[in-house]
């Protein structure tokens, strides 16, 4: 719920030491702040003031820049004030405290500026969702999808789909309203047009899966027998010491996850406990989790080493392979510096013929120079998921939310049934009307006048 009488404020830049910090205030309280803290009586909108920011006792807190925006010409549509202070934790703290003394001024809730912008009709729901994603974006691809949503891409697409459906509706209605006329509204044309939108929506629905993966990240699970160097590999590619590395088998017991950007995509690496018969209960739980995780994810990275070749390890991997034979696996033969490396590699191949079919590399994970070799393989994974997969074109990804999916699916359902009802024009038109409503639910409205407009501008009609 929004309370119009309350004004809100928040630090809009991160909390910490920086060149400048921006504090934003939205609502009628802005004037009060400008007057009391900035000593500006009637601020000129969109004008940059340089002024001293003062506390209640008129002591100078900081010398700042301030911009005032008058309603409705602001981000939120309300009066807004932006204060640019020095990026000092102490200054920020003091300013926020002083602001909280001002009546009817409250710290903003998360997303409250956006929410106000939405309710004041400055942005659409989709834009609000998009900006929200944009702020949270970490990878290039996340940014691209968020930009599509925030800056008109998604809205234009919705508008285009709406326009198309409205146009088809007009064609169908023309056959109803002007059946007496000898006008040329061919049914085959209508059929083609509906089919085209069905295809477009279908690909958008597929795209949602991709956008979801772009935001959630592609999961790659590093697994293998104990003490093959999984954690060393993990630390090498994630540039971290997140996983503890010892020479003791069974060191990693929990799943450890780190996110990276590869080829612009978010990738989540998970280090897992080595697969063997556990020595204690805690390790057992870790191994159970590992096998579960391996079975649930698509992309796997199996690490093997010469010194881990033994019957027990071979058998436990054999069991696992039966369950994961359809998944994409990269095999890393680690510790290539060991003497019997080639021989051991052969043994692994013979014991697990399945390995021959996978793409594998040999490396030594304690050597930092080997990183690019491994990353190259990971890029391949990413490419196979996102790029080689035809459905993805960054510029064609517009929907992210579950809400969008629900409406798109319903829209598709109505379109399909309109397609099947071409012989029953009035029902076909009804399904089109409902399809349109679903897109409208994602954003906006269509007046029935528009439909008629299209009919008349397109055809010569009139008895």
């Amino acid at each position, binding site marked *: 719920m929004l309370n119009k009488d309350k004004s809100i404020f928040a630090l809009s830049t991160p909390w910490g030491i920086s060149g400048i910090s921006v504090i934003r205030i939205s609502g009628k309280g802005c004037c009060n702040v400008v007057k009391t803290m900035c000593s500006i009586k009637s601020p000129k909108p969109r004008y940059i003031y340089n002024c001293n920011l003062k506390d209640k006792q008129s002591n100078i807190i900081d010398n700042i820049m301030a911009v005032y925006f008058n309603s409705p010409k602001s981000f939120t549509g309300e009066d807004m004030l932006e204060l640019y202070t020095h990026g000092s934790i102490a200054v920020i703290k003091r300013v926020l405290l002083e602001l909280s003394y001002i009546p009817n001024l409250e710290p903003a809730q998360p997303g409250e500026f956006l929410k106000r912008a939405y309710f004041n*009709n400055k942005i659409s729901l989709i834009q609000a969702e998009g900006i929200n994603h944009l702020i949270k974006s970490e990878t290039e691809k996340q940014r691209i999808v968020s930009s599509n949503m925030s800056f008109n891409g998604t809205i234009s697409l919705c508008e285009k789909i709406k326009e198309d459906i409205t146009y088809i509706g007009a064609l169908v209605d023309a056959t*109803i309203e002007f059946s007496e006329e000898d006008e040329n509204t061919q049914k085959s044309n209508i059929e083609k047009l509906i089919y085209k939108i069905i295809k477009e929506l279908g690909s958008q629905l597929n795209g949602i899966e991709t956008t979801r993966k772009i935001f959630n990240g592609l999961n790659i699970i590093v697994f293998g027998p104990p003490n093959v160097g999984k954690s060393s590999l993990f630390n090498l590619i994630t540039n971290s010491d997140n996983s503890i590395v010892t020479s003791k088998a069974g060191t990693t017991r929990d799943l450890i996850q780190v996110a990276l950007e590869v080829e612009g995509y978010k990738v989540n690496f998970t280090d897992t406990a080595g697969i063997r018969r556990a020595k204690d209960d805690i390790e057992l739980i870790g191994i159970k989790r590992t096998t579960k995780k391996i079975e649930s994810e698509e992309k796997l990275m199996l690490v093997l080493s010469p010194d881990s070749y033994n019957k027990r390890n071979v058998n436990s991997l054999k069991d696992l392979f039966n369950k994961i034979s359809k998944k994409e696996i990269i095999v890393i033969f680690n510790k290539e510096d060991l003497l019997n490396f080639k021989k051991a590699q052969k043994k692994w191949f013979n014991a697990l013929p399945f390995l021959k079919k996978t793409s594998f590399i040999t490396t030594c994970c304690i050597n930092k120079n080997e990183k690019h070799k491994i990353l190259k393989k990971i890029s391949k994974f990413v490419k196979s998921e996102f790029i080689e997969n035809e459905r993805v074109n960054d510029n064609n990804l517009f929907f992210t939310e579950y809400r969008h999916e629900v409406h798109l699916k319903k829209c598709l359902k109505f379109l399909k049934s309109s397609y099947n009802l071409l012989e029953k024009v009035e029902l076909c038109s*009804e399904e089109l009307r409902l399809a349109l409503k679903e897109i409208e639910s994602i954003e906006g409205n269509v007046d029935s006048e528009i439909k008629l407009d299209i009919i008349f501008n397109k055809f010569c009609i009139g008895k």
Partner: protein
Amino acid sequence: MFHVKQKFYDVIILGGGHAGVEAAAAASKIGAKTALITFSRKDLGAMSCNPAMGGLGKGHLIREIDALGGIIGQASDMSGIQFRMLNRTKGEAVQGPRAQIDRNKYKKAVSGLLKTLTIFEDEIEEIHLEKNIRKVRSVKLKEFGNLNCQSLIVTTGTFLNGLIHCGQKSWSAGRLGAKATTKLAKFFIKEKFVTRRLKTGTPPRLLGSSIDFKKCIEQKGDSHPVPFSFLTEELRLKQKACFITKTNETTHKIIRSNIYKSPMYNGKIKSKGPRYCPSIEDKVQRFKDRISHQIFLEPETEAGDIIYPNGISTAMPSNVQKKFIRSINGLEEAQILKDGYAIEYDTIDSKELKNTYETKKIEGLYLAGQINGSTGYEEAAGQGLLAGINAANKVLGKKSFVLGRSDAYLGVLTSDLMKGGLVEPYRMFTSRAEYRLTLRADNADYRLTDKAINLGLACKDRSRKWIKKKKALAAGTKLLRQNYATPNKIKAAGLDINQDGKKRSAYEVLGYNNSNWQLIISIWPQLKKVNISEKEKEQIRITAFYEKYVERQMGEIEELKKESGLKFKSNFNAKDCAGLSNEVKEILLKNSPKTLGEASLLPGMTPSAASLLLKHTKK
């Protein structure tokens, strides 16, 4: 036919066109003391343009007006000379009854139906208001002097500052051969009503005997004509054929080379005409790639002596009209009886109206018909009926009567008109109704006749027939719902349905595509004995067929109603609602609605403004 004329009336109606006669009929039926003022009694129910009633959307309106006790349906049935159900091959929801009408017989029928009405053949001079309040008090007639009234319904059609154009010539008139109402126009200007100038046109009329029909394609009416009115048992007049011919390249050449003589193209007429009823000049100019346009030769009378060439409305000078007409196949020798012309007229912006058709500015003053910017006999009649009901109800202290978009085409008409700001004459289409599958011509009585009975508009015959029909429909439906069969059995009868093991009721099965009563009886022989007429059986089938869609629409309507029930907060101020136009804000401030529903019914509200308000109330 002689009535003692008095000086005091509850409701006075100005104008005897299609809006006026419905208003008068409704007001007097409800029990208000009613009088109608017209230039000439002979013009009561005159059809000044095409000799046809009904069609798509329009036929729906006639059925609804009839279901509410109006006269247009019966009068059309008494004078119809060719009945056709449009879209007969399409679903019932988009079928519209239409008929060619003998215009003289129509006028006679209307006069007959209004036998007991008090009529003044006179001209309005002035409208007087009460001294201190803005309320109608009386009208001053040229001959008869002052008449007091509580309510006044103005239905003057195109007569308000009417200006006829024919070629270079133009003159003041209401329609060809009738004078315009300029004094009334002055009243609306004085009272600062927002007016808007619109245009319409009509084709030349041809002498029937001068046309070579052998060269044209004959178009017959339905072999089993269906009447408009739920009361009509039988159609009496002989059915006549129409004929179809078309323009050709010579015709177009003549029009093009003379286009500068058309007042629409030489700048004389600036106001906008209806897009769906373009003049032949417009058609030729706008659709240059078309080498011909269809013309329907429609008889204006049973005798067939006057022919209305539908499709070539024009305002070309007389000699050009003659020239291009004679270039058309079958019309080589055609004699023009009356030239075609265009007419410009003033309309009152319907934003001036409440949804009862009463003006906001002046209490007791109602406007209905073409004066509100609509076009068409049916649209006018519908408004006349609603204005008549409300004017009478107000005088008698009864509740106002407003139909919504989900109730009837009449509701769609009202709510569309009340949005105001029409840029062209408003005509009904089925696509204007969101709930087209619910608002069918076949179920108008089901939707409205109970309301008519409550309002006192249904005569005994209508009430009796409807109550009997309602009972039969209910009994038949109940029986169908009580009988079940397995999908197996249904399939055996020839219907391809999902073999999911779920039993279906006879009602459900009757509603399937391609289902019918014969099939039902082959599955459930016991239903053979159902004691209802064929017509009622068909009605049940149509209802069953659309029911699943209607149910879905009902859900939507419910949702809308829930939203319209949303209350504004006590501190709601339209000024705070960003995104609204200043105009809408003003409307809200002036009327201070309590709920979203009330707000969305306010004239001048747009759907997008309503959705902004919805967002505002939800936040």
